[in-house]
């Protein structure tokens, strides 16, 4: 059984979809009960056939506007979150997040803003090699994951941020990162090839990602 729209159409004649008000209640209940964001796909799968959770969400989101709890979009999923201005009431619920090292924070930011990004590219931007532990920690926190391999020689793996990252930082998607547009406009998210042989960026002069490869050797202490 798939959860795609096509087969709901067929079923619609058999099971009438519940009225929109009911669908709204259903989405509300499902999102309320879950700490994790719930994807539209999952909502569709759990609700009666013919339901349109996307539409129900539009109403529900409106209903929760300005309330103590809000409906948040995270990637392709939805979640209920308390309003940020009420955080002070919740000291009791505060979860101690593991302290991230400066290297980890910087690496995370670089992955978020430059994704998909290879390890070599991260190293080029930071000017030092990225320690295995830093990446492992971010992977373990499920804030980053492996993306597609780059279509450059060596087909290096890339890193991208996860839905968990978006959720943690209250972002709807990675395009909403603060200052992203300005950084892009300033050309600071470009992978600019180094002219000639700069030690920081490796010996290779050509304009490919491969030029960023192998620089870690230069920084190995």
């Amino acid at each position, binding site marked *: 059984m798939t959860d795609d729209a096509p087969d709901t159409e067929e079923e619609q004649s058999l099971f009438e979809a519940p009225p929109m008000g009911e669908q709204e209640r259903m989405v509300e209940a499902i999102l309320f009960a879950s700490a994790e964001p719930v994807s539209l796909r999952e909502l569709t799968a759990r609700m009666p056939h013919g339901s349109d959770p996307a539409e129900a969400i539009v109403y529900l989101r409106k209903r929760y506007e300005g309330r103590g709890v809000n409906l948040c979009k995270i990637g392709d999923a939805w979640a209920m979150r308390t309003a940020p201005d009420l*955080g002070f009431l919740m000291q009791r619920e505060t979860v101690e997040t593991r302290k991230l090292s400066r290297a980890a924070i910087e690496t995370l930011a670089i992955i978020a803003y430059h994704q998909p990004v290879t390890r070599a590219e991260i190293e080029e931007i930071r000017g030092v090699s990225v320690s295995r532990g830093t990446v492992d920690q971010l992977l373990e926190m499920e804030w980053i994951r492996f993306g597609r391999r780059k279509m450059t020689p060596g087909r290096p793996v890339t890193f991208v941020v996860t839905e968990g990252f978006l959720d943690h930082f209250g972002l709807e998607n990675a395009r909403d990162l603060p200052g992203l547009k300005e950084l892009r406009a300033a050309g600071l998210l470009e992978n600019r090839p180094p002219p000639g042989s700069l030690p920081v960026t490796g010996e290779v002069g050509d304009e490919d990602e491969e030029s960023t490869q192998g620089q870690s050797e230069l*920084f190995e202490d």
Partner: protein
Amino acid sequence: MSEDSFQEDTVSVADRLAAEALIVDVDGFEGPLDLLLTLSRTQKVDLRKISVLALAQQYLAFVERAKALRLELAADYLVMAAWLAFLKSRLLLPPDPSEDGPTGEELAAHLAFQLERLQAMRDAAARLMGRDRLGRDFFARGQTQEVTRTRKIQYTATLLDLMQGYARIRTRDEFRPFVMDREAVFTMEQALDRMRGLIGFAGDWTDIVSYLPEGWEMDPARRRSATASTFAASLELVKEGHLEIRQSETFAPIQLRKKDRPA
């Protein structure tokens, strides 16, 4: 040279003290780029307007001081120092037209870009970490409800499964260990061998049936196998250019003829 250039720099006492503090702190830096970025702050200008030459001089002075203090610098700091010395000379000397490669300005611009990019990423990181965060500023549902997943298994079978299943039972006695029944099989290799020996004599169109091995024509199973392999072998020989094959119409006899090889 660096000692001199250090003197030339119009740095305040405070800056000089800061520079010394840097040296003691060298372990706290994340590599030469990080150090350069810190040094660049003493210029108190927009990173875009930074004087890379001045920065190079500062860095070289730093390395000199470190050497004087017998601090051991990691190799990458020295690599950077060498490169900056090279950059400095490029920036100071008039460009040599015979030399290709990037100009001092291009190299300086790239370094400035790297510094600006690193700074931008640090600012971005700080802004990111300063956002409202889940579990600190906003919260997820405290009392979640488990979604119970029930797995319903639906078994299916096709009519074919059913019939084959039945046939299997009813013909169980007929089953023998799964080995090829070689007795009634004439392999294509055998057919090829046979044909190769025979085609020399087939100057004229001959029915393929006449190529079947002796003793295989009567038994239907053997005849089928031999016909199939002889036909396949013929095609193979046609492909190799030894044979011609024809059939006048559907179900008409298939005829073979030796093909004279072009000289």
